[in-house]
């Protein structure tokens, strides 16, 4: 399995020469976000449609502390992860009791709860205008103001999180979560407390989302309201599905596709979400299984 790693490392190194460092950073940040979601979606079979809850909450909290209390980067990251995990624990606890449509709707509704709280609490979050002025403090003497240096930091973190996620999905937990996805009743019969494991998946996914959220806030210097909106939740679901939820690297590929799509479309047309919607529809109707599966099929035919 060495090949993907080599490809990824090459991508990490070469990317800032192909696109602006800020966009490159955004891609890896979104990939981290997607990895977190995929633990729930691909591995546990839980379609969590409210991941932006954890992403956005972490971004707001860390952003607030960074802006008003001048905490350092490391602490900001830690808090982001913590907030992401904690909010996921709360949401997860409420949601794992239900399954199927109920579950999806609940994650969405709770996302809305956080969204409207952020929308109304303008004194803290700035409401519709977002929370600008998030600094990017130096860490260990390294100044992150240079986009390229920040990119190196972000991509390094991405590689670390990818490694962590790889360990997790190859661990017994990974197998147990997949067993729950395959046959929850049997998984319970065999001795696993399914709701508790689902909650654990939530918390881990939330931690990853939280990390992505803080990095995002620091990247753009602002926490926009969109970061906690359901549209954002939908974007990461789309990215994960188009990359292929069945593999570890799916969300990474999906992140590339999505960010490339949205960045190229948004500069051309203010109404680009319409095209995004069309893209969603096309993927669903014609491209199920995502890019990874399509690639599998193609490579099977060519390399057999």
């Amino acid at each position, binding site marked *: 399995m060495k090949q993907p790693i080599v490809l990824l490392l090459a991508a990490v190194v070469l990317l800032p020469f192909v696109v602006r460092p800020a966009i490159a950073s955004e891609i890896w940040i979104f990939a981290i976000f997607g990895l977190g979601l995929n633990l729930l979606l691909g591995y546990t079979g839980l379609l969590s449609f409210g991941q932006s809850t954890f992403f956005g909450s972490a971004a707001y909290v860390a952003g607030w502390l960074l802006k008003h209390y001048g905490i350092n980067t490391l602490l900001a990251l830690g808090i982001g992860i913590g907030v992401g995990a904690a909010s996921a624990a709360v949401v997860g606890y409420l949601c794992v009791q239900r399954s199927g449509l109920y579950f999806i709707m609940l994650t969405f509704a709770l996302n809305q709860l956080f969204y409207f709280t952020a929308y109304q609490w303008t004194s803290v979050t700035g409401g519709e205008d977002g929370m600008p002025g998030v600094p990017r403090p130096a860490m260990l003497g390294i100044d992150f103001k240079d986009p390229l240096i920040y990119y190196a930091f972000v991509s390094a973190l991405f590689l670390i999180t990818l490694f962590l996620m790889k360990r997790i999905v190859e661990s017994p937990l990974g*197998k147990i979560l997949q067993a729950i996805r395959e046959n929850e009743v049997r998984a*319970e019969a065999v001795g696993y407390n399914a709701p508790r494991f689902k909650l654990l998946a939530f918390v881990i996914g939330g931690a990853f989302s939280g990390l992505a959220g803080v990095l995002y806030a620091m990247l753009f210097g602002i926490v926009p309201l969109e970061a906690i909106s359901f549209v954002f939740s939908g974007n990461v679901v789309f990215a994960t599905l188009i990359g292929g939820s069945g593999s570890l690297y799916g969300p990474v590929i999906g992140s590339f596709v999505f960010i490339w799509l949205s960045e190229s479309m948004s500069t051309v047309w203010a109404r680009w979400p319409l095209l995004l919607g069309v893209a969603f529809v096309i993927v669903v109707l014609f491209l199920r299984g995502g890019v990874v599966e399509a690639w599998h099929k193609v490579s099977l035919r060519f390399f057999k």
Partner: protein
Amino acid sequence: MLLETKEITKSFGALTAVNGVCLAVEAGTLHSIIGPNGAGKTTLFNLLTGTFPPTSGRIIFDQRDITGTPANRIAHLGLARSYQRTTVFPAFSLFDNVWVAAFATGPSWKGLLWKSANTYAEVAGRARQALADVGLIDKSHQLAREISHGEQRQLELAIALAAAPRVLLLDEPAAGLSPEETRRMVALVRSLKGRYTIVLIEHKMDIIMSVSDRISVMHFGSLIAEGTPGEIQKNPDVRRAYLGGVAA
């Protein structure tokens, strides 16, 4: 007595599926439960495995009252079950199917999140043993959804074995099997006798009579007879219950 139920009853509203059933299974024996369709046998199993709690009555396992234990704790107590309708993990390989069952009841969950799943030697050993016992070891790497129905029934059993339980609850292991496959399943069950305490639900009388140490007969949720195969065969109540059903 390793496993007992005392006056166990389960009602779903107006329907009483299991009515005051007393079961007593001695360690190391094979105790069968028979009865026409709808007699409540699978519901009784569901009670034993904690799928739902009884309306009244008690379940005693190894002198301990385990009534009301939830389904996901039952395996840890030492009871494992196979199902009448094949319910495995379709996208998993056969090995992973049994591995996941073996890990649950393994000695320790240390490293749950970070140790590679391949490094649990004891678990892998039990998993391989379970597959070997049912004769599927050569197909360990095939996916569960790709093997034949008969092999899936064997896998069904292997998942229960992988937990290294003390009691095996087998719900119609021969369901849907061809005569040849049934013969193999019977030989398999017989090979498990003595190593495990087995409670068996089956419809095929020849199997029941040839492997059982004791038989309980259920009808409309109640126990109507209990005894050795010989006694049951001669029992007039049993004969009457089976008129029109599967005859001995």
